[in-house]
């Protein structure tokens, strides 16, 4: 298993795909943080920076790369079928479940690493700026530390969810389009208009994790459990049904 995870990490490092997506994920962070601070307290913007809500809102910038991370997860799995590399991967490890396990672990590592950098970037933008506004921020407080931790957890699990999606939908393009369409359109509509259903979606679970304290979502731990369950369920279903298909 250790060898397989090392190989997966090497696969990522040796194509350009990961760098582009990682850059996209990280570039979103300062943009989100800046716009959150700039728009705070204005009409159409978030709550004022003087409030707890306002600070939390700024900190959620740390998980703005979640969708990029989801796509990375999808490509880690579905890319094997896109380029037929599944053949040599499954020749080395005929146990396809182990391959999925290695990919889940790898994607989680990548997600966690990007999330950590995202947190640092968020603080790097927010702390000096807020200091100039004479707003003191305690990074170990619930409003900051917990939101950042939740964001790290959400992105870590989101990457693994991507692997699950990619194992369920072997066609890489279809998997990416469906996942993004679901997240950006269907899920947003559900969360906004049919909230009772929306909060149980993967996106709803992620929102619970990333510090939406409005009480409209599940508690943080509930969001974490639900999101992990989605990832594992997709991966298990993919391994059981889709991945067992012939590789030709």
């Amino acid at each position, binding site marked *: 298993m250790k*060898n397989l995870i090392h*190989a997966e990490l*090497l*696969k990522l490092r*040796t194509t350009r795909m990961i760098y582009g997506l990682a850059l996209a994920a990280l570039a979103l962070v300062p943009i989100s943080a800046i716009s959150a601070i700039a728009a705070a307290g204005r009409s159409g913007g978030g709550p004022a920076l003087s409030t707890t809500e306002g600070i939390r809102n700024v900190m959620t910038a740390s998980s703005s790369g979640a969708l990029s991370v989801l796509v990375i997860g999808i490509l880690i799995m579905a890319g094997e079928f896109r380029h037929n590399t599944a053949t040599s991967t499954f020749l*080395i490890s*005929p146990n396809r479940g182990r391959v999925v396990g290695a990919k889940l672990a790898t994607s989680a590592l990548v997600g966690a690493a990007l999330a950590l950098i995202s947190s640092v970037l968020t603080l790097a933008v927010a702390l000096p700026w807020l200091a100039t506004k004479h707003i003191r921020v305690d990074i170990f407080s619930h409003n900051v530390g917990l939101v950042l931790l939740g964001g790290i957890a959400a992105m870590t699990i989101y990457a693994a969810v991507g692997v699950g999606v990619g194992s369920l939908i072997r066609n890489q393009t279809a998997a990416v389009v469906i996942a993004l369409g679901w997240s950006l359109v269907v899920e947003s509509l559900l969360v906004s208009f049919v909230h009772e259903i929306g909060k149980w979606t993967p996106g709803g679970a992620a929102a619970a994790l990333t510090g939406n304290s409005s009480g409209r979502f599940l508690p943080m731990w509930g969001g974490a459990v639900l999101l992990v369950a989605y990832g594992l369920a997709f991966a298990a279903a993919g391994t059981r049904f889709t991945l067992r298909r*012939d590789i*030709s």
Partner: protein
Amino acid sequence: MTSIQIHGLTKRFGDVVAVDNLSFEVAQGSITGFLGPNGAGKTTTLRMLLGLIEPTAGSSTIAGKPYQELVDPFRRVGAVLESTSFHPGRRARDHLRVLCVAAGLPVARADEVLDEVGLADVGDRRVKGFSLGMRQRLGLAAALLGEPEVLILDEPANGLDPEGVHWLRKLLRHYAGEGRSVLVSSHLLAEIAQTVDDVVIVAKGRLVTQSSLADLADRTKPGVWVRTPQSQELCKALASKGIAAEVQSAETLVALETTTEAVGITAAGAGVVIFEMTARHFDLEEFFLDLTTSTTNLSTEGASQ
């Protein structure tokens, strides 16, 4: 010793029977050519042997075990299946390094095999810039990484230039010489006739024949096919004149390496009646074509009944 054993292997894709109750063996230390026209089920058979395709029925083993049950399969079996299974954006050396890491081999093997297949100079190039021949070589390099005792190659000569084919033959010969087994598929007998010890010929998913190449060559020597009610007498008469002949049935006989004139004169001298006589001048390739097309016809007849 048997290195690869295929027993009653069958694969159905919907109504299409791609491989039909196929059985054959590959002996250790030999090169076996797996021959058949396109669509004969060769690739499907090899992929079933490697655990990539689930057979509808039957089984296959390598070194006595199904592929999925081998410990460290990548070190036991090297396979070259298609020239397209590379990430186009990955450098050739990196592709091999990934496989090394996954299989627990030292990454230095990547450079060794690149050298072995003549790609040392282009190891840093991304695979998308590779020609078909270079991809075949890279696929072969990947198969050699684990120094496997069994090599399985699906149409490895595709895309190779004549010099490349010559190189491939030498490499396979060298490999078999070390006591390893090679199973190599091809739709062209001529391509591998100089290399293989044994041949397994398939058509329409069914076994046509398995024999040593020498036996196959014997069956294809030019000769004279004769229909006569006195085949035994004619055979003796021919033998007394130093002409080898095989009685095929009560009424037919094949005289080897001779002419219709010689057979006619011998028959007249022995007082043997001849009903029909034809000279045969086929070569191995024609014989192969004959074998596979006649089976093709048979199975289409079978299907229409």
